[in-house]
């Protein structure tokens, strides 16, 4: 119910943003950032409610993961608008809101059962909580980088292109350490404590590594390539696609140790 209200708020935010996108005259959209904030807080409340019900941090299933992703993305959308990071650009918060809505739509699909279930022994670990939460927070920043990279590739205005490039880079540079810590390091520590092995080339691990390698390649290419290069933002788009495949595709197509995730 709480997640449904949050979904409604984000849809409303999306509609308002569409109106402002097509508005020829300027004008400040002051409502949609607050709708994003309200949706984020509601989703946080839902996570806390579920956590209390299972007496563990509710981050152990697909539904909870999607709620968490949408929650932090909604909060980041508000922060981007509040701190004017996007410098009045309306498309980036709009694109990020679409992705948050997609996450919540998937959460309400049969692919993500919303039944509250306490975790099995392998999932009862503080390291798992750090692993999942850091990974998703990193990916939330990658989402903003993804939207910005698409705009960077599609715009013909050089000034805008450079502005998008800066935002793409900043988003990836903030998300990268959080993702590195969560997906690779906390994940490996958890695996060692649970199964006695740091790394087992499980499909989820392999694809998380591919995501990390892609973003690492982006950060290095950006140091040496010209800002007009299309390869650099393309890597961010590919990286986000791989991150999403790691989350969804591996769960349904390539089973492994993470089959419960």
């Amino acid at each position, binding site marked *: 119910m709480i997640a449904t209200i949050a979904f409604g708020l984000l849809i409303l935010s999306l509609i308002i943003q569409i109106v402002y996108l097509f508005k020829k005259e300027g004008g400040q959209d002051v409502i949609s950032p607050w709708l994003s904030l309200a949706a984020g807080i509601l989703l946080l409340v839902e996570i806390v409610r579920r956590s209390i019900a299972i007496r563990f941090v509710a981050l152990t299933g697909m539904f909870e993961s999607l709620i968490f992703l949408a929650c932090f993305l909604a909060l980041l959308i508000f922060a981007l608008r509040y701190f004017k990071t996007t410098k009045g650009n309306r498309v980036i918060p709009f694109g990020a809101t679409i992705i948050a809505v997609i996450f919540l739509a998937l959460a309400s699909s049969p692919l993500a059962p919303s039944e509250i279930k306490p975790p099995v*022994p392998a999932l009862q670990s503080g390291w798992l909580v750090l692993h999942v939460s850091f990974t998703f927070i990193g990916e939330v920043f990658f989402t903003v980088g993804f939207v910005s990279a698409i705009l960077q590739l599609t715009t013909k205005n050089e000034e805008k292109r450079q502005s998008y490039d800066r935002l793409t880079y900043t988003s990836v540079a*903030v998300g990268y350490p959080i993702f590195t810590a969560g997906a690779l390091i906390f994940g490996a520590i958890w695996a060692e404590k649970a199964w006695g092995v740091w790394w087992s*080339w499980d499909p989820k691990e392999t694809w998380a590594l591919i995501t990390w390698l892609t973003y690492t390649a982006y950060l290095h290419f950006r140091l040496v390539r010209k800002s007009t290069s299309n390869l650099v933002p393309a890597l961010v788009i590919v990286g986000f696609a791989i991150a999403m495949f790691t989350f969804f595709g591996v769960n349904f197509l390539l089973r492994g140790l993470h089959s419960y995730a």
Partner: protein
Amino acid sequence: MKSSFDKVYDALRSIKLAAVLLVLLALLSIAGGIIPQGKTTGFYQLHFPGAGSRIILALGLDHVFSSLLFLLVAAVFAVNLTVCTFHRLTGELSKPRGKRRHGPDILHLGLIILMFGGILTARTRTETLINLRRGESADLPDGAKIVLVDLNYEQYPDGRPKSWESTVVIHRVSAPAPSAANTPAPSTPGGLPQYLIKVNAPLRLKGYSIYQQSWHTEKQVVLKDAMGMSFSLAPGMRGATKDGFVLFMALDNPSLGAAVPASSTPATSSAPAASSDPLPQSAIFLLEEHGKRTVSKAAPGQGIGPFTFDGYIDQSVSGLAVVSDRGYPFVAAGFILVILGVFMTYIRKLKGMLA
């Protein structure tokens, strides 16, 4: 004019080379993530007919992560990382103290140590799986013995596992220890500390760790002797007789038969769980009498050698993994440095994003 050494050095420390190697590693990993690994030649010929299977097998893409190609790219990457770290670190050290930025150096150093630890782990890690019932013991790598004192398995109402826990004691060489592996041991060894091992909480000992790997129940047969004393046998275990032994080989068609509970508690120290599943009608035994061996089938209530087959019990078995890994401290140190370095390098960007 640059010398050949300088040219090679510059090439090896180049960021462009690093970026290209990262993309290559990503592409090879994608191949490893998409192509099923470790299958037979026939499998690849069937699923990737023609040139596909030839390329997969020639490039070692059927075992990407241990293939020559992957290891070669990883080795060049390691050299690139090492040279780059050295070059950057010496450059930073030559700067005034306040202007140094060591985040990337720490990150790169952490990755080098991590790779070293990973290689050491791959070459020296050993894992031994042991299945213990209550009171049983097994040898550990340092000559000590582990004795399973108790095990506890809890389920949620929906049947999913809630916890697996094993309580064990470790008998050092100097302490009194059971005589052989998998033989009954005192369930309450006096004076020795008890350790709890559960999933996500391994027991760390000097040089190795013990993990709670699995838990299952097995059906054991309960045999009663002429004096009315009963004892249980797990599959593969034997009970001594005057002229030889009786060995419980296996259940005969476990899908058949009605429940036949054991009529009394076995004489072993374990406290078996009550059986609730339908039980097999008969079991298969190997009998040795005066050096002559015969295989017999018996149902509960029937005689088997000098014993009466009294019924079945469910016995809990704890699966423990004993892991020794010399790469552990290096991997752990690498992780610490990578986290420290990556945050030192990039987190200041957060200020730029939300300022």
